[in-house]
């Protein structure tokens, strides 16, 4: 096998390289996010028609669904990065997990609160101890536990490993969240079919939703890039490359 074929991958183990890549990518993701979210807000708040059952109350969907999606996607990133960090002892993977967790927690919080604000007018209650809502709340506690645990040690390597183990145990919660509306009788509606002839959602409502989902994802990528930079520079502040980077 060509001995250089993995060179691109090994570069991602180098803090200065990842720092530069993050610096380069962040503004692009931020600009694309800004455009997508602006278009999504126009479509979601203005040009899409009111729902036939929920009137204008359904418009909370345009922030609730993207944040709920990100809350789970981000946990996938934290868990994957933790696995890579544990198995291959790759420090940078732990750095990514630690950088991603606060973002994931914030979007989980947003999904829960926007869900409550949607639940009150539609279900008559801000909160019910329903399988979907409870498993999403557990996701928030997993994030908070991960953040607390990874910062609980003097030595960042011990914190990284302890947090990573918790993140891996918590993965079991992801399928529970996803299938909660199928496995248990839930007040929360089931998954919406986006595409195909028997799609559950009209194009005029689907387009803004897709714009918001991709916009939030790009925003997340931009924020993650900056947080990875922050975490890397903080951990390696005494390295020679850090002096170069802050010039």
């Amino acid at each position, binding site marked *: 096998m060509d001995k250089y074929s993995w060179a691109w991958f090994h570069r991602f183990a180098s803090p200065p390289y990842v720092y530069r890549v993050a610096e380069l990518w962040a503004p692009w993701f931020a600009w694309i996010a800004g455009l997508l979210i602006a278009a999504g807000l126009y479509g979601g708040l203005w040009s899409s028609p009111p729902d036939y059952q929920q009137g204008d109350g359904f418009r909370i969907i345009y922030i609730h669904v993207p944040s709920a999606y990100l809350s789970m996607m981000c946990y996938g990133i934290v868990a994957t990065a933790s696995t890579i960090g544990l198995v291959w002892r790759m420090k940078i993977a732990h750095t990514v997990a630690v950088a991603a967790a606060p973002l994931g927690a914030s979007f989980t919080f947003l999904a829960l609160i926007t869900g409550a604000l949607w639940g009150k007018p539609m279900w008559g209650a801000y909160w019910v101890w329903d399988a979907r809502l409870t498993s999403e709340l557990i996701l928030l506690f997993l994030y908070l536990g991960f953040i607390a645990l990874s910062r609980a040690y003097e030595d960042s390597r011990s914190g990284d490993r302890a947090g990573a183990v918790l993140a891996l145990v918590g993965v079991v919660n992801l399928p529970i969240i996803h299938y909660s509306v199928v496995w248990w009788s839930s007040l929360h509606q089931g998954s919406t079919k986006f595409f195909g002839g028997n799609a559950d959602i009209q194009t005029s409502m689907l387009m803004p939703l897709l714009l918001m989902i991709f916009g939030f994802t790009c925003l997340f990528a931009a924020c993650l890039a900056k947080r990875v930079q922050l975490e890397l520079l903080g951990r390696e502040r005494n390295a020679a490359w*850090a002096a170069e980077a802050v010039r």
Partner: protein
Amino acid sequence: MSSLHEFLSMGGYGAFVWPAYGLAAMVVVVNIVLPLKRLRRLKADIRRRQGIAS
């Protein structure tokens, strides 16, 4: 400006829709501002420690 009033009332759901969007805006702003501010402070700190005038 009846159309603006109509827009803000959100068909009677304004009291739920706007707080949801307002909170989302706050979370987004904090997610953007916090790391940028901390990164700037950290860079300044590293520069100071190394005695490099910025």
